[in-house]
């Protein structure tokens, strides 16, 4: 594992000057993932914030080959690119070693892109799919997705006098990807860069399909100050709302176990999207959320073979 100093000297594939919001959690995720590749990368990107903010024609923030075609098909696109590479390599028309990576938000991954993601993973392409999960359709203005946590106030699951935000819990996509039986699946957060870069390297080197789910704050949607993005992501990890773990060749390993697991309210109270839950009539929702987090964390620890 390279030191932070060494990593900081690696040329950025995502160049500065892009138009992502200040404090956007997607940019550090992308930069840290790409730092882990010791080969040139070719990137596919789903429609979303990352795509629109980095490529306003005639400008681009990408220093590597990058392609976007539509919303739901980043996994299919990268599998076509990888298939072309395998074909041309086999024919001796290309000799360079290349890593293939796709980026999509939770809308493009959990929802509209789930089918193409599942297909690409089942087919065994040598690709790394990275979801930057900010828990809503942020690009179109903070609409709920299946990654939106229970209770969150979004523009299509607004907190009202009758309905207190999104009624149902989030989809556990990481587990769904584990169920695909692919060589490598991991959950990461940019707040834990060492863990993230280590996992990204494993993903690139696993020889088959890999899936990485990255917690990425959106300060517009989560409603916090831009400078707090990484701190809030860290709270997500410290409360075990977003456990850091990996499943490598079927072996589950929790890669970070908080010394003192913090109560979920610390993660919730830092964000405006949960503000309405802090009333006597909605307190039970926080209790339900805490119970869900505890259950999942305990279950994960039981499955984990080796505690970090």
């Amino acid at each position, binding site marked *: 594992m390279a030191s932070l100093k060494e990593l900081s000297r690696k040329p950025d594939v995502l160049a500065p000057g892009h138009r992502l919001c200040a404090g956007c959690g997607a940019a550090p995720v992308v930069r840290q993932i790409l730092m882990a590749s010791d080969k040139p990368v070719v990137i596919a990107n789903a429609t979303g914030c990352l795509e629109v903010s980095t490529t306003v*024609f005639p400008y681009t923030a*990408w220093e590597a080959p990058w392609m976007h075609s539509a919303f739901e098909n980043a996994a299919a696109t990268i*599998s076509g690119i990888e298939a072309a590479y395998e074909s041309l390599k086999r024919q001796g028309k290309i000799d360079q070693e290349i890593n293939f990576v796709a980026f999509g938000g939770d809308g493009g991954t959990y929802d509209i892109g789930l089918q193409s993601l599942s297909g690409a993973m089942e087919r065994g392409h040598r690709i790394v799919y990275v979801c930057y999960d900010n828990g809503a359709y942020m690009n179109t203005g903070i609409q709920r997705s299946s990654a939106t946590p229970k209770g969150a106030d979004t523009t299509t699951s607004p907190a009202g006098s009758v309905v207190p935000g999104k009624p149902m819990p989030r989809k556990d996509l990481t587990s769904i990807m584990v169920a695909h039986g692919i060589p490598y699946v991991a959950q990461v957060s940019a707040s834990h860069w060492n863990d993230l870069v280590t996992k990204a390297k494993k993903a690139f080197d696993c020889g088959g399909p890999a899936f990485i789910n990255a917690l990425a704050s959106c300060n517009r949607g989560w409603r916090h100050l831009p400078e707090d993005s990484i701190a809030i992501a860290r709270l997500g990890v410290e409360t075990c709302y977003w456990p850091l773990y990996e499943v490598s060749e079927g072996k589950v390993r929790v890669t970070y176990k908080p010394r003192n697991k913090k109560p979920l309210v610390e993660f919730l109270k830092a964000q405006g999207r949960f503000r309405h839950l802090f009333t006597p009539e909605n307190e039970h929702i926080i209790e339900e959320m805490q119970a869900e987090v505890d259950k999942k964390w305990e279950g994960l620890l039981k499955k984990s073979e080796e505690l970090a």
Partner: protein
Amino acid sequence: MANRTALTGNDAVAACMRQINPDVVAAYPITPSTDIVQSFAQFVADGLVKTNLVTVESEHSAMSATIGASQAGARSMTATSSQGLALMWEMLYIAASLRLPIVMPVVNRALSGPINIHCDHSDSMGARDSGWIQIYCENAQEVYDNLLQAVRIAEHPDVLLPVMVCQDGFITSHALENLFTEDDEFVRQWVGEYKPDRYLLDVDKPMTIGALDLQDFYFEHKRSQAEAMRNAPAVIAKVAEEFGAKTGRKYGFFEEYKLDDAEIAIVVLNSTAGTARPAVDALRKDGIKAGFLKPRVFRPFPHEMIAQALKHVKVIAVMDRADGFNGIGGPMFFEIRSSLYDLPKRPVVLNYVYGLGGRDVTTNDIKAVYNDLAQVAKTGKHDTLASYLGVRE
């Protein structure tokens, strides 16, 4: 050297694809085009092609992966029908706008609903404005020949547009027909090695593809895409000329059958032209000056040439195997009728929607249309502009 053989329309496609030997094929099964992918998968399994076959989980992903592969620098193909083409819709426009020379055999089948697996042209007609070149085929021979020409047209630097090669579901795709195929070596030389100038896998020259294109540039990009379609006719003609010189099989933008002196004519696509041939022959025996025009290239639409070919005809019926649901008639009707608008003396142009969902159309049905046209030619009167052929009202 040409070899005489017997193949179904689907197997003519598969055989041709084996010879084209694309770098990548990404495909998904759908009736009636499934045989193409099945036969091709066997070629892959038997090591007869170098192709990386990607058996995707949907047609949307088939087109998406084909687009990715093509952009990456691989000669890439797929095939589909009906709902599959419908599911690709979003990506069809993107393939064309990225100027990717993808060749896609389309086996025409009715669109749902109600669900139906048989032939009509509602699938590819709906995609006529997606920016793809469209070529229509009467029989297995034309399927084979047009597919070979499509590769050259698509990849020509003046064009760089995707091409659909359409044939009639079941009628052509599943019927065994005699045809001539060319030697593998001929095809290898005919298509040549695919060497794109710029491609995504060239990591030393990174490029950003599919950028957000706003008010400043989108219009110019669409304008240059439109220009590529305007460049296509010259290339299509040149490729057909070379193909004719090498194989002896000649192709134009359309076929004219006994049209030179025709007073009444129909315009008809694909296999129904084969049905119309004996109808015209029979009418000619009775001294009736009947003929037909069978469009081959529907996109780009050769409107001036069509106008020249039809200008002397008194009454024309445009046969549409797709309805337009516009309150008037089928899609080809408007295109043909509009092409004739600038003629000093315009023919009467009527429309028949026929054969939806695989409804059989016989030589007698076609004769009945010609009888209607003869009547109109004689009286100068017609009751309706557009009507249906062979439907229970």
